[in-house]
């Protein structure tokens, strides 16, 4: 059974980490959590991102929620903004895909191309798949 005393111990242990997070060099992971996102499964995506951030011990990452991003049919949507880089929008997320994004893009800086929203001639090509180089 969880006890309040445990919380005290966690606080002592993590005090330093919390303080580090006030600077603005953090990577932001934004999850769309409006009706459209939630219905499409944004909550497990959000929680699996948190899990993976914890598992990899990433300290300089903030996971935040936002409202409707505007392309409801492509939800769940996750945006990754690394300091000094352009925003990358990932679409049709699920818990497993989200984990890959944290491990590859957030932790190592390699964009996961298959899940990125691609816009061609002003239209979203959402069934985009990566073709192998021949």
């Amino acid at each position, binding site marked *: *059974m*969880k006890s*309040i005393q*445990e*919380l*005290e111990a*966690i*606080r002592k*242990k*993590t005090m330093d*980490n*919390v303080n580090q*997070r006030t600077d603005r060099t953090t990577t932001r992971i934004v999850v769309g*959590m*409006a*009706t*459209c996102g*939630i*219905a499409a499964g944004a*909550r*497990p995506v*959000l*929680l699996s991102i*948190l*899990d993976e*951030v*914890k598992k990899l011990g990433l300290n300089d990452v*903030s*996971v*935040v*929620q936002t*409202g*409707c*991003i*505007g392309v*409801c049919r492509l939800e769940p949507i996750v945006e990754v903004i690394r300091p000094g880089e352009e925003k990358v929008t990932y679409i049709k997320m699920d818990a497993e895909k989200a984990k890959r994004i944290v491990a590859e893009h957030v932790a190592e800086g390699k964009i996961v191309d298959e899940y990125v929203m691609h816009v061609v001639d002003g239209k979203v090509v959402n069934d985009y798949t990566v073709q192998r180089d021949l």
Partner: protein
Amino acid sequence: MREISLHLIDIIQNSVSAKATLIVIGIEIDTIEDYIKITITDDGCGMDDDTLKKVKDPFVTSRKTRRVGLGLSLFESACERCDGYLEVYSKKGKGTEVIAYMKFSHIDREPIGNIQDTIISALLNDNVNIVYNHRYNEKSFEFDSRQIKDIVGDDLSNPEILDWIKEYIAENIQNIDGGAF
């Protein structure tokens, strides 16, 4: 929506957009009178009477990205198909209260779902406190994020703290009603 907890998080997001700092959530299950009552009360910016009249209309929304707003409409239809109803009270500048009733034993009633995940998601918003009351017949449990913040400080986004809260809520709900609803 597949679970009541998903409707809940949707309504909570409304409260967050309304700049609420305290959101009080209640789930009350009475198996003798056979109802489940869900309440969400916030101290956000509230609505004027005109907006309040139209609030359950799916073609009314305050968001700018598109013209439909389905959150409350979906929740209302989930209640109505279980012989229940949804009520919204609001005062401009004071806050908003959403009350949902469903017949507990109705075959179409959605499962309550994962409440702890919903509360965790809500707590990730800055400057938001959540009070959660869970009542099952005569047994009840209350979670108050302000008590947690008194101990660990205002930033709850630390994964270990979130994990603790998640398990704490899950265990307590489990103790009350077996968590099987």
